[in-house]
């Protein structure tokens, strides 16, 4: 099987990341090559310290590679200014964190609205988007609640709503079930699955094999290198996501 794909959404070519602390060099990523196609659901798995979070940070433009090339939607990101990177994070990337990372002083509504305010969107349009996103995750009945008044599962659903409210190109999820019990974890995974079915591109870091199985593709990182790249779905599914099977 060969594939002539439409342009990849994410393309990493020889990406490395080295952290320098005093006189110690830590190679968090080492010559990583990776392409993610639009609509793909990729699980990034591996043991602690394998480079999963570093990879996700680079994908989310929260960090920069030490070497290598990163093309997002076909455009290199290395020369972007901090302002451009912020704009891309705001418009094209949605984050879901393990610790939810909702702002405690903001209500559910305001938390979901937050990224939209950075776009200069009108209040009316923001309202429409926020309510749509909250409806999607089933949290419209909690709009005026503060995060501390919600359960962990509810908080993560709000975080998902915040991530999808801006209709990003890609969702980056860092251990989205890590702070949840199994019931809530499954619910969140179901939500991601649903988003994926509707066409969302998702990259999810997890070290739990049960949750990695939800993705159609698993990338295993060990010592900063991609040691395994597996697909769990058939060609028809790939085609649906823009791959051409030859």
């Amino acid at each position, binding site marked *: 099987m060969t594939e002539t794909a439409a342009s990849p959404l994410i393309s990493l070519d020889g990406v490395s990341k080295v952290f320098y602390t005093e006189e110690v060099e830590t190679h968090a990523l080492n010559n990583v090559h990776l392409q993610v196609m639009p609509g793909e659901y990729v699980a990034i798995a591996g043991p602690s310290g394998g480079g999963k979070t570093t990879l996700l940070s680079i994908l989310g433009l929260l960090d920069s590679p030490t070497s290598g090339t990163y093309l997002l939607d076909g455009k290199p990101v290395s020369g972007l200014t*901090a302002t451009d990177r*912020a704009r891309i994070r705001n*418009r094209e*990337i949605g984050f879901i964190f393990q610790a939810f*990372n909702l*702002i405690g*002083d903001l209500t559910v509504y*305001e938390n979901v609205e*937050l990224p939209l305010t*950075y776009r200069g969107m009108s209040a009316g349009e923001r309202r429409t988007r926020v309510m749509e996103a909250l409806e999607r995750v089933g949290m419209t009945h909690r709009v005026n609640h503060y995060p501390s008044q919600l359960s962990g599962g509810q908080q993560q659903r709000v975080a998902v709503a915040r991530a999808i409210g801006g209709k990003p190109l890609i969702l980056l999820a860092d251990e989205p079930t890590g702070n949840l019990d199994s019931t809530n974890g499954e619910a969140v995974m179901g939500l991601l699955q649903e988003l994926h079915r509707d066409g969302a591109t998702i990259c999810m870091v997890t070290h739990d094999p049960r949750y990695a199985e939800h993705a159609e593709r698993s990338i295993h990182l060990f010592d900063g290198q991609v040691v395994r790249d597996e697909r769990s779905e058939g060609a028809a599914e790939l085609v649906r996501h823009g791959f051409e099977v030859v």
Partner: protein
Amino acid sequence: MDTLWMDVRLTLRTLLKSPLFLLVTTATLALGIGATTTVFSVANAAFLRPLPVRDAGRLLAASEVTGRGGMASDFSYPDYLQYAAAAAPVADVAVSGLQPFGLKLEGAPVSVTGAFVSGSFFPLMGITPAAGRFFGPAEDGPAVAQVPAVLSYDAWRTRFAGDAAVVGRTIVVNGRSVTVTGVAPKGFTGVFLGVAPEIWVPIQSRPTLAPGMVDPAPGKGRRSWLQMLARPHAGVDADRVAAALSVAARRLDRGADETQRNGALGGVRLDRAGGVPAVARGIALGVMGLLGAAAGLLLAIAAANIAGMMLARAAGRRREIAIRLAMGARGGRIVRQLLTETLLLFLVGGAAGVALAVWLTSLVMRITLPGGGPIDRVFVDLSPDLRVLGFALAVSVGAGVAFGLLPALAARRPEVVDALKDGGNAAGSRRTRMRSAFVVGQLAVSLLLLLSAGLFQRALHRAVRTDLGFDPRGVLVATFDLGPYGYDGARGAGLQRQLLERVRGLPGVTAAGYARVVPLMGRMTTDGFVRGRSLGQVDFNRVSDGYFAAMRIGLVRGRAFDARDREGAPRVMVVNESAARAWWPGEAAVGQTFNEDPKTGYQVVGVVRDTRFHELDEPSLPQAFFPTAQAYQPEATLHVRTQGDPEAILPAVRRELAALNPNVPLVGVGPLSRQVGLAFLPQRLGAIVAGSFGIVGLLLAAIGLYGLVGYVVAQRTREMGLRMALGATSGNVLRLVLREAGVLVALGVVLGSAAGLGATRVLASLLFGVSATDAGTFLIGPAVLATVALLASYLPARRATKLDPMLVLRTG
């Protein structure tokens, strides 16, 4: 705009959730902004606030430019008439001069401050009376049968209960009937800063109301006491008016009579009327500059505290900021949000500061300084106006931006990934360093204020212990002027003599006498000659028998004045020791002759100790005393020594004067020690202002250090726990924390002392015999600062020693 409102709403929500933080920051800023706003309120009243008159910007105050660039703002009435004639084509002019009046209310005379004004005065002001009408030029003439008078609004309200029927009523001023024609509008207090006349009368009524104020006959000298005001005609600028007046000045300068100044009069300059007169503006600006600098330093300490708190707060919000950045917020947007928070704090603090300033200025306005000369009491309206509010707003925003920007910039780029993962508990060493720098700055500035306070305190200590040569304790002074009441020399001297005898007979009075001038409250000079040799201008006072005893001025040789020294007897005088040494070196002064001019001779009958009579820090100067009994003066000041509280004798003194003439009021009444205390005013004010600022600054700096050490201890809880688990004792941990705080304190002391060595030099002229680098102050100040600062560090450091190592290590 809509996102800015979101920032404001969020800030208000978070602040209201931390009431203690809000309270501490508001109180801290209120102190800093309140102090600067109070100082600005004074500056506003002194320099900026326009008079409440029509087109205040075009009302000008005139000053004569004298030789070598000097200025004089007092004009004589004859000179004014010549200036008015010269200016007539281009401007309207008027004069106003202060005068104490005895206003008879319900049978008893009350001393009030009034003003003689030219008939052109009220038309020149362009104001509308609150009741009745003003008098004009037609009623300012010698032939006016009934003297018109205008009451101030306050006098109308307080002395006549706001009775509208007072207009047209006859009242008694200085024993003469005058008719109230109108009431000045509310807020109009004349044109003299610090003085609010209660009554205005035409200047040509002087022969009736104050014969003593009548101008000397031509060729017999000049009485300069009037402020001259001008308003250019429409289309005429101030320069043209000044030029016209200067032409008149040069004519006066060349005048053939006594008014001629022999080339000393260069012209006339015009400045906006109101506030500090141009002649005193330089000194006033200097004083205000010092006050402003002290208040600014206090504000800097307060604002640095807030900056430190904001840094600590930002450290606790690393995760929130990281989330915002991850959501696509730009750095500038984060800075804007954090600045909005700081600015809101400063605005709330600013509002509290304005409230504090209003309270402080109301306290200042309640302080009654004993007036000198015609001034009954000093009054400056310091109530806040739009300019003061604008200043407070500008200071709040300016300081908020200046001190909020660095913490905001430091917080805008946290280690996003770490912050999102660990929740942002890691201590940012950059932030801690910045906060430490703020604390060092606070300590240094606080020390600078403490040093200034210490220097002023020592100066005051030295000033009040100065040997004045007389003993002001237990002495009551009270002035009365018989001039307006029609006394000739014989009758006036008779009343004065009778009053003195009556006062001496009062229980508790041990001695009493008269003097023309109260020491340190004025100065009189005359030409002096000894054996045909001119001594130049010689300081003198006219005193009665009993004066030296009442003042406890020691007699060194000869005798004091007594009953022998009456009108018609040989003219005698007493000199002080400096005069005896300077005028008759190597000879006995008693028995020598002194001439006031080549014709009049006085025989020296006694020598008394030197006294400080002009300036507190002057060297001993020669001074002469002439007996009042040999040259009647209608104005005299009683000096009454009592065994107890000198003010307790005042009612009895009033009764004795009323028994002799019920119309004559006493003015300038009070203990001599209070009046003499005015001479210490610069040192006292300096000690109070710098002391208050120093103490508040020290307190704020201590709070800043306390907060920093507490923050560092909290951030290093795990490390401390680990050290203790590894065997460190409480003492080890305490020393560790205190050593780090000690470094900051030491840096603050070094910087503050260095700044003090440079900055306190500008105070040198106010320090009265204390060096600006006084070693004692430069030892004690840092010691006080270090003690307080280390105590402030000790409290949170002690918390570190109470940690349970296992609990800390388990919970992380």
